[in-house]
Every structure is written in structure tokens, then in C-alpha cells.
């Protein structure tokens, strides 16, 4: 890994092969470091990206090298995220699409085309409380009477 350290400027510059590390992963990793370093990106996303990390607090040679190492680790993390996101894109789109379509049909007519009124109860769910618990309430009443 080639890198250049400029101690007076408190910065380290290194190069990334864009074929290995897509620009989306670099953005992600850079964002994680935004509170610890000033980040400058240059180069060509089709060939090679130049990363320059400038420490916000004064760092020595080793610390700057460590910063670069951490950046690589974070880059790997984001690389995996980008790969998984690409791999699951179709499934994700399908799930979101299905959710949106089913959500938009709530107030439309039923899927079979018939215009069901909200008072219709094709599944027989809308049973009044009194009818549903008729037996239970009758038993309770009897129990109450006997206990008194």
C-alpha cells in the first residue's frame, strides 16, 4: 500500500483502486471519519481515488498510519454493505413495492372487482358482543343469582 505522510500538515495521503473499492463504499467510510479527520477526495472513480486524511487533532507518524488502517477497515465494512445492498436490491424493491401496492388498495374496491360495502361481512367477523358472549353472560347471571 503506497501512502505519503505529511507530518507538518498532519495528513496522510493514499490511493485506492476503484475496481476494488467503489465510490459508494468510499463515501460511506469517509463519512464515519468526518468527526476525527478532514477528508479530501480526488482522482478518478473509474481508475484510482486519492484519499487525503488530515487529523483534527495533532497526530504523530504512527497515529496517522493507524488512521489509514482504520479507514481501510471501515472501507471493508462498507464494501460488504454495498455488495449486500446490490445483491438484495430486487428483493427489497419487491417487498417495498408489494407493501405500497397493498397499502394503496385499502380504500379501493376488493381485488376480485366487487364493490363491497364496509357493512358487508364476508368473513363473518362482525358479530355483536351480546351474540358472541350470549352463553357466557347467561351462565354468569345464573352464578350471580345462586351466590346471592
Amino acid at each position, binding site marked *: 500500500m503506497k501512502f505519503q505522510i505529511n507530518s507538518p500538515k498532519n495528513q496522510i495521503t493514499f490511493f485506492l483502486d476503484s475496481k476494488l473499492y467503489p465510490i459508494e463504499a468510499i463515501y460511506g467510510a469517509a463519512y464515519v471519519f*468526518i468527526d476525527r479527520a478532514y477528508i479530501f477526495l480526488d482522482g478518478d472513480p473509474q481508475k484510482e481515488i486519492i484519499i487525503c486524511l488530515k487529523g483534527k487533532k495533532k497526530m504523530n507518524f504512527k497515529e496517522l498510519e493507524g488512521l489509514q488502517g482504520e479507514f481501510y477497515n471501515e472501507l471493508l465494512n462498507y464494501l460488504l454493505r454495498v455488495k449486500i445492498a446490490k445483491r438484495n436490491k430486487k428483493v427489497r424493491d419487491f417487498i417495498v413495492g408489494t407493501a405500497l401496492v397493498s397499502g394503496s388498495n385499502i380504500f379501493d374496491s376488493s381485488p376480485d372487482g366487487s364493490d363491497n360495502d364496509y357493512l358487508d361481512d364476508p368473513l363473518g367477523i362482525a358479530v355483536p358482543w351480546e351474540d358472541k358472549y350470549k352463553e357466557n353472560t347467561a351462565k354468569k347471571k345464573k352464578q350471580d343469582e345462586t351466590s346471592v
Partner: protein
Amino acid sequence: MKLQFNKKIYLKSAVQKAMKDYSHLANFDLSQSKDYFLVEIINMPPELKDVFEDEFSNYALSLMKK
């Protein structure tokens, strides 16, 4: 002082938004060369001189992720 933002990496909209959001601190002038957006910072506050450009660059980069 002119800052350079690579056109292939930074979106113009992100640079412009950064300029807008920092406009209460300094004046900016945006121009462009073949490969770079060039941001000239005018009337930079002297007390922020050491960090202003760096913070501005970081902010522009952070806007790229949104």
C-alpha cells in the same frame, strides 16, 4: 483562497448547498475548470481561518451521502 472539488467525485448540488449553508460566515464564488469545481472564499472570518476550508470541505463531502 480557492478550494477544488473534483467533478467526478463531488456533486455540484452538494457544493452549492455547502456554500449556501456557510453563507452566513463568508462569501463564496463558484466557478469551474475542466475537472474541478472551484470555490473561492471571500471575507473569511479571521478567527476561523485555520479550520474554515477544512470544515467546509468536510461538510460538502457529508452532503454527498444524503
